């Protein structure tokens, strides 16, 4: 399975966003896991939980969305939901169809805390949820 390496790439991408924006903390990553992405949502979520705290995205939340599998006919431009895995055009019968969405694992956006002042008032999600170890 390749979910773990994809989640590493996802965390790298989000870490780059954080760095380029000069932010201090990632609050959340919103991703789309398409029905034909070849990626299993549950495995993405467990890999994320296992890996996130060793990255600059520490404490971030993963928000997974599942888009429909949308296909467009090249002949009549009809768009339809192919989640039942029938790809011929139901409107004109054409076999020439193209997937518009639903075959990708995409990073949609990254929500960050932008500066130190804001960070001081925004405790790490991970810290607030996990039992802390007294020093």
């Amino acid at each position, binding site marked *: 399975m390749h979910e773990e390496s994809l989640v590493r790439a996802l965390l790298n991408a989000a870490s780059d966003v954080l760095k380029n924006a000069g932010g201090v903390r990632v609050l959340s990553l919103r991703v789309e896991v398409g029905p034909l992405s070849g990626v299993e949502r549950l495995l993405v979520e467990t890999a994320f939980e296992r890996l996130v705290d060793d990255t600059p995205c520490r404490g971030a939340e993963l928000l997974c969305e599942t888009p429909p599998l949308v296909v467009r006919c090249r002949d009549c431009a009809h768009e339809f939901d192919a989640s039942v895995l029938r790809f011929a055009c139901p409107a004109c019968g054409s*076999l020439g169809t193209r997937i518009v969405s639903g075959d990708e*694992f995409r990073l949609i956006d990254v929500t960050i805390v932008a500066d130190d002042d804001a960070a001081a008032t925004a405790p790490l999600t991970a810290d607030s949820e996990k039992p802390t170890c007294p020093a």
Partner: protein
Amino acid sequence: MPSVTIPVNRPVDASLREQAARMRDEFRRQGTLVVNIVSSPGAGKTTLLEATAKHWGGRRRIAVLVGDIATDRDAERLAPWVPVRQLTTGGACHLELPLVQRGLADLNLPNLEFLFIENIGNLVCPASHDLAEHLRVVLLSTTEGDDKPGKYPKMFRTSQALVISKGDLLPYVPFDASRAVEDARRIQPELATVTVAAHRGEGVAAWCELLEAARSRMLALSPAAAK
């Protein structure tokens, strides 16, 4: 909480995809059709490639990169017929682009007409990895069952050709070729199909014609390489 949401809207593997697209374009300009051959283990990928090399008998400039988790048995089988490099993944269940790049550098054969990449036997993970191919071919052998396309939709959707292998066993196994093709075309309506019994050479001419036609279509997009 003061926060800012920064849009990204890119596939997680975008940089590998872009790299694969650039390589594909470069191969097209060189006139090399790259063929990624996928199937479950034992479906007959290596046998088909042996038969292909024998059929062309040196009339086409071809080479093979062959992936396996362990051993170089497939490369040994192919070596008498075609320049070949083994890509050993050490446990990984699919080939990825960097391995292909390393194999290509090792092969060091410019101006190929066909480059075949024999993927790891696996109908799942290889479907998600673009190896810069122009043509993805999925083999389904008659001993595997005709219900497989619907069970592995991503692999069949992302392929352009279906080779039904071990066609000589059709009288002896409960495999309905028309049912398999119908199931696959529900997922990929434009799938080209050919049935072979590669170790006997049956269907190999039709398979090679399919490859030649795919290369001609690619060259038609690329006048510079067609001359």
